[in-house]
């Protein structure tokens, strides 16, 4: 049995920008609105930090889904969002080639008070990963 298959849970990694989405997640907490606990939020300055390989490494390690919660148009780093979008195009292309379901990676913009949008994204991803199960990515790829 592969190490991934032994795990029953479907972990969702959330890359949340420190100026928008991360305080947005805090705002959901302040409202005491529950959401699935299989979500792990990493505070990032700008998701443009992550190279293509980071996403595939996450899938290989057993992360079932990744949500990039960016600032979208409100990005404080002018030009970073464009570079991120371009990188993700390449990531999606490679995911297709590797037969990784595209629903496992999602780019969205979450503002500091976007509680409803945050909950929708998390619940949608949770539904998808429950349906898809953990990713079975060949570690040698």
């Amino acid at each position, binding site marked *: 049995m592969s190490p991934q298959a032994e795990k029953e849970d479907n972990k969702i990694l959330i890359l949340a920008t420190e100026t928008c989405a991360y305080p947005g997640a805090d705002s959901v907490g302040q409202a005491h609105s529950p959401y699935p606990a299989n979500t792990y939020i990493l505070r990032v300055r700008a998701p*443009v930090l992550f190279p293509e390989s980071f996403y595939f490494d996450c899938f290989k390690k057993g992360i079932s889904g990744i949500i990039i919660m960016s600032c979208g148009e*409100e990005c404080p780093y002018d030009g970073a969002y464009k570079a991120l979008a371009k990188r993700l195009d390449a990531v999606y292309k490679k995911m297709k080639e590797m037969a990784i379901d595209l629903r496992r990676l999602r780019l969205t913009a979450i503002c500091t008070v976007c509680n409803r949008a945050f909950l929708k994204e998390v619940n949608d991803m949770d539904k998808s990963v429950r349906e898809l199960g953990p990713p079975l990515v060949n570690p040698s790829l």
Partner: protein
Amino acid sequence: MEEKKNKVGVYICYCGGNISDHVDVEEVRNRALKLPDVTVARTNMFMCSDPGQEMIIEDLKSGKIDRVVVASCAPSLHETTFRGAIERAGSNPFIYEHANIREQVSWVHHGDPATDKAAILIASATAKAKHLKPLAPIHVDAKRHATVIGGGIAGIKTALDIAGQGIDVTLIERSPLLGGQLNSLGQLAPYGDHASDILKELIDQVTGHTAITIHTNTKVEAVSGYVGNFSLNLLKKSDPENIPLTLDTGAIVMATGSVSYTPFKGEYGFGQYESVITLPELIRLLKANTSSRSMLEVNGKPIKNMVMIHCVGSRQIPGIHPPKENGTLNEYCSRTCCSAMLNAANQIRETFPETSIYEMYRDIRTYGRGQEELYMQASANKVVFMRYEADEPPEVSKNDDPDYPLQVRIKDGLTFNESLTVPADLVVLATGIEPNDVTNLASQMKLPIGTDRFLLEVHPKLRPVEFPITGIFLAGTCQAPMDSGEACNAAGAAAVKASALLSKGYIELDPFVAEVDTDKCQGHGACVEACIKEGALTLMEVINPDGNPVKQAQVTPAMCLGCGACAAVCPEGAIDINGWALKQYEDMVDAIVSDSVAV
């Protein structure tokens, strides 16, 4: 016991039950102790309390730990608190990592999953912490000059207090007049000072101050730069050629103020009957009134019965009050109208005893020193109070009685919901406070705006009058409804913070910028191409240890934004962001997927 290579101390907060009601904090502590890099794991009822911080300080001083992880509320609240504690222990404040187990765990998850997730987030923070290294703040020269946007009482007071610290100030007002809303106020609640006297004194001071430059009739068109080195483009309305003025400044205070709510046509008969007016209009009439008769006169007509309706354009409820065309609803209390209404009612009853007053309110909120007394005074002055519910507001309609052009019908909660009709010859609406629209400036400066459309300070208790953007502050009614005294309090606070920031002539910024590992850098230049900030990253020729010239990337720390666009593209992994390194994230993911701490 075997000596551990890394010595991470983990401190877990109960938050007085906020965390411990849902997360088994002691269980999390036991699991954290089993982590390979953790030497100390402790818990406290309130980690932010002095005894909580003292635990960290003692462990650092005794050498038990060299990295700190605190698991508590959101890092926006106490990251700086704990960095401060580390500094007081004589250590570098950047050996710190935060695990958010309140907003992102105990307030949204319950039971075992909450405990498991808290343990995993701590394991992940520990994985990041072991790569933390001491960092030095970045030194930036700052112009000893501040700019205050908005020349109302908050702006004037801010400018005076900053100038009082020996720092030059430019005060910008878009209208021709300084003084803002106070220009239209009369005797101020609760002590009856005349707004005009206070304004005269402050305007004399501000116009006479040698360190203050005033631009009235001037709009701020554009803002750029960063703390210590902002640049503003100003446009004077009087300039026929529209030549923008450039202003270099070290700090900015937003004091952009508010306006009084304008009722929609037909709201309590407003715009429909000329005898329906707003509270600011009544105040203007009272200011101009020189009559010595015993009955108030408005436009030559004596007022026998005056009805005052509270909460107009404030405390609006979705589904009951119609939103404006742009979809906005003022759900907040405007705070100042109750006292202002009672103040006006007392003035009228005491000056014109033959004018009767009926106050129709939802709740009387005379908060603050000396203000509840106004309510008692109004009762003694025989003002008649009637209470209505939001879903059954008073109805203003035409009256056939030639003596009273209007009548107001109310279901009065104070007389067990009796339906009462009051004939009236004047109806006054207590219109609330709305912020001035500064969306354009706010979006240029990346300033947060609340759902109520007021500007949003970082935290009302921990970091009041500050924006998350270093070097920009706020004061007065642009941040919330407040009276002139409160606006001056905020102004004083903003002035002190701006002065303290600029006093040294330089500023120390967070060191979270890119750093090149010169041993690994091969000079490909991919990072320079990917960099989004011109001037932050350049390819330089340097002499390597063998004495040969080679190309290598160099960072200009004060310019670097710390976004990490460079780190993603380096084939050698030779550039990374201090404090937010790619390597740290990889290890955090490893800790998340490893279920070692989740039972």
